């Protein structure tokens, strides 16, 4: 789920940057450092929406390095997977154990145990695709699937999730060819 939240971040600046454009530099550095990062509790920072420059307070000089630490408040657009949330994701890879799908930066693994029964044994190694018993549904790389998040693993700077398509209205929603339209 996307949501907007105000967050804080510490920026360490070397004296080089001190000058009239200090705040602009801080904002730029903040974006560089934070965007794309996965914060354990908040999810991925998709975008830094706003950095109120008036809220950038004066920094604190560190003794040993001479660098200055600024604490910056910013508003960010976050993407956080919630358990039981239903997402649309794009399949990127299929293997014998299931498939990986991406929802933006979030990688979701759907195990074969989390697929409908008719797909449980449906992995076709030659096509790298999961095919249901009646050959109706073919999930392969590039497909869009609707899935439900079942679990979430937070690692350093990265979040991965486990999903399921074993439920009503879940599963393939796009065969990948008409994605663009």
């Amino acid at each position, binding site marked *: 789920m996307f949501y907007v939240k105000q967050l804080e971040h510490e920026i360490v600046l070397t004296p080089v940057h001190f000058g009239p454009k200090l705040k602009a530099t801080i904002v*730029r550095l903040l974006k560089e450092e934070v965007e794309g990062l996965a914060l354990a509790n908040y999810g991925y920072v998709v975008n830094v929406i706003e950095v109120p420059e008036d809220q950038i307070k004066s920094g604190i000089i560190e003794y040993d390095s001479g660098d200055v630490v600024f604490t910056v408040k910013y508003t960010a657009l976050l993407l956080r997977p919630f*358990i039981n949330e239903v997402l649309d994701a794009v399949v990127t890879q299929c293997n014998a*154990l299931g498939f990986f799908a991406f929802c933006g930066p979030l*990688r979701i693994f759907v195990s074969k145990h989390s697929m409908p029964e008719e797909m449980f044994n449906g992995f076709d190694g030659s096509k790298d695709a999961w095919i249901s018993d009646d050959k109706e549904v073919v999930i392969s790389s590039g497909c869009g699937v609707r899935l439900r*998040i*079942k679990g979430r693993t937070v690692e350093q700077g990265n979040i991965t999730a486990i999903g399921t398509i074993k439920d009503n209205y879940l599963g393939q929603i796009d065969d990948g060819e008409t994605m663009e339209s």
Partner: protein
Amino acid sequence: MSARGGKFFRGGKKFLRPVANDDDDDEESSSEEEEEEEVSTKQKSTANANLSSDDSDEDDDDEDDDEEEEEEEEAPKKRKAAQAEERPKKTKKAKMSSFFDEEAEDDDDEEGDDEVYGTHHDPDDVVRKHYTADDIRKEQMDEEAREIMRQQDLRRSRMGYGIGNQERSVQEMAKEIEDRHRMQNRRVDRSVLDRGAVSRQRFDEDAPGGPEVYTAVSQQSLVPSVSDPSFWMISCSNGKEQEMVFQIMNKCVAHARQGRPLGICGVIAAQSKGRIYVESFSEPAVVEAIEGVRGLLQYTMKLVPIKDMTTVMTVVPKKKPVKKNEWVRMTRGHYKGDLALVLDVRDSGLKCVVQVVPRLDLSLLDLPPEQARVRRKIKPPQKFFNPQEVASMGRQSIRQYHRALDAHCDFFENNFYRDGYLIKEVTVGSMIKPTTDENPPSLDELQRFRRKSSKDDRDSDGDENEGSKIAASLLDELSDLQGKTGLGKAPESGGLLIGDTVEVIEGDLVGMRGKLMSLDQTTVKVKPNDKSLDLGGTGEVEFLASQVRKFIAVGHHVKVMDGRYANETGTVVAVEKLDGETDLTAVVLTDATRKEISVRTSQLRESAEVSVGQNSLAGYELFDLVVLSGGGSANEVGVIVRVGLEDFTVVNNHGINRDVRPEELRGKRNTMSNRAVALDVQGNQMRCGDSVNVAEGPHKGKAATIKRMSRAQLFLYSQTRLEHAGIFVVRSRSCVLSGSRNQSRTGAGDGGSTPFATPQSQSRGPAGGRGKRDDALVGKTVRIQAGQWKGYLGAVCDATATHVQVELHSRLKKVMVIRERVAVVGDKFGATEDMSQNDPNSQNTAAASAYAAAATPMHGGATPMHGGATPMHESGGDEVWRPGAMDEEQVADNSGVWGADTSSEKNTFGSPANDADDGWGSSQAGNTWQPSGEKQEPGVDPNQSAPADNQIAVKHEEPAMATDTDTNNNNDVWFMERVCVQLKSDERSAVIKEINADKTAVVELDDRSTQTVRVDEVSRVNPKEKDMVLVIGGADVGVEGELVCIDGTDAILKDSNEDFKIVDFVLLAKITSDN
């Protein structure tokens, strides 16, 4: 037991006393006798093992004899002895023995064969001694009290407490025990001799299993010296050793009876074969002893040197004797390692009859002898013998009587078979060995040993073979044991631990989940997760342990605590209930191996820990870069992708995986890998940890992280790959560096992408504006501008804020130079003088203006930073300057004559938009394929080279190529000497002879006439098979070779090293084979 080995000595001893003198003073003689005893008992214990194979019947007989003799011996002595002296000694003896007696009786229960003790002292004795000591007090007590006291005393005495005047004897005992431990001095001290009977008792006591703990020192004191009797070794025939000993013993007895004892101390049949040893102080006595004994070769008599005497008596820790119904293993032949059951022990344990599952190859019978001989070397599989089967082969097995088993058996090819088992008489030691504790019969072996189908066996008559039954019962026992240990742990707590999330599975609150707060034997306290749940204010609910179970949800990261997969970690992908199981089973996708395993939830625990599985073996870990030995090439390296219990799976630098043992690895190269730098297809530097996209080859399109690198091979790791733990191998030139992390990190001078870097890239000033260390300079070729080393070229190997360390090209020397005094002239591959002028790619007006300043003194090399940052400018992602590409662009954009001063052209140079369209960072523009070595051959007006461009561009199949043509970039990489071309005007073929500076070339036509052409006037000739070709693009650019065959779009060529290469066909240019 103990008496066994020694008993004949004891008997013998009495008579063999060298200084035997019955008429001596009693005290003397008895002490003498005791001394003898001391010595003999000691030998007894050593001889014990040697003679342990005596038949027990014989033993008993001996024992009886001994005793009789002993009695006989002692009787006259006692008669002669002065009664006064004798008595106190006896009392003492009795007192002492009362203790030992009790103990001995206890022992008897276990040993069962030492009636000796019992006969010496009857228990009443003991009791009497105790209460007579308390005579006076006893008088005053009534019967009851006396009875109680007596019992108490008895008990005390048993426990070793002394009372009353027994104190003294107890002290003696203590002293003796002390002595016994300290000592075992061979020279028996007098005080011990005084208590002869006691010490004898004591040693009898010792032998069965008494304290055998000798210190090294006390051991040393046991070593024979010159004052001890010597050994003479006499040969006899093998296997007759014991017989000889018995004969000599009998002879001794006989002689002693006649009153002229032999002067020997003992005869030993030690472990050596065909030898016996006679112990004596004098040689003549030995000669006399062996004289007339049949089977002894008297002339072989030889004195054993003192230092070898211990060797004679050394007891090789004897394998425990084989017993009936024991499991053994075969050690020879086809049956080697097979489990066998001992049916009978023969020849006093030297041989035994075993039952084993046959390994018969019936098909051998039909083969001609020479083939059979070969086949016979192959170990046939285990298979039960079936007489019908043999009969159907046209052979007959006959029923024959097996003497040892006392049963009729099938007899076939000189072997007995019963109930399908092979019955074989084998030598213990050489043919079989007992199953040890380390190597007990396994379940599998027992199952194979067990014969289940006894129905169709005519011998069995319905009941199972005895051996099979034993196997079956052992099997049951084992499986029982396993069942117990398996069940033992699980149900008691269901694997619950405090802090676990549990789910209520029974009762009113079924389905409730909560955190386990406390846990005792039967009940657990759970704090519900659902805060809204009102439980009467307690906050915790108590359940029976059986009412809750561990709750593991899909998606949790767990660790397996127990069982087969212990210590694996992974993510739960499914939780399901299997039939017939009370527990839930979770399917866990493991972190390390990316496999799915099924584990009971009770064995799981939520954990954030990520195990790497078996992560190290013999010092090697998963993902280590290792050097492989063996297997052809000397420089084979690989990355460990699996660490097994005994071996590794390694993916080598060719992408082939193989299993290797730790011994085959010749060390790690991780540090080398971490230091290594490789270049991607665009010439970007790549290091370990960088992420890359694979641009070509079988892994094309994949994104991965560089885990390890070895030379030009990258071991890439991708989380989404399952095989080889996500490792695959790609050539560095087939990859494109991706991701912004890397660029922003190394791109301190990267003015192209972020304004952040502008201070440096705008060259505002020399070091003044330099906040970070500018690593961009490291590795560059620089020219020193001033100072002692002015004019020298060198590579920067280190850079600080103010200085750079330059490794001079021309001298083996590193010099420190002030930063301002170096000018970048090229990358680490060499210098290019034009570098400073060839800086066309600034991406915006700001940069352009900076460039415009190139002609100014500031640019003239005095500002190294600018030069250092240059490479970044051109592509916004490309930090290494590539001469080829550079020239290309320059030529393309300048639309002037190459090499001219380009400063005036700057403003016409590709607009920022143009640059952006190029998409350098993400896709490879075609011109990046160019070999750097070809940069010297421009010379044609690029504006007119469009046709040629298009031709190449299309063949590159890269989207970016479109932009190449748009920018009128020419791609005439093939336009070089020796290349075969076709004139577009008249389709005549020609060969380029010489390239001129103005991008024209002299071509030689078929008729040997020459002509000067421009690049657009000729076209390349597509090579055919067997032609000599030059690779003009791709990873193998520059390679010349013979085109072997064309397969679709790929071509296979053989290069000068006879190696075969597969190259895209469009990347080949035909060349002439000569010169």
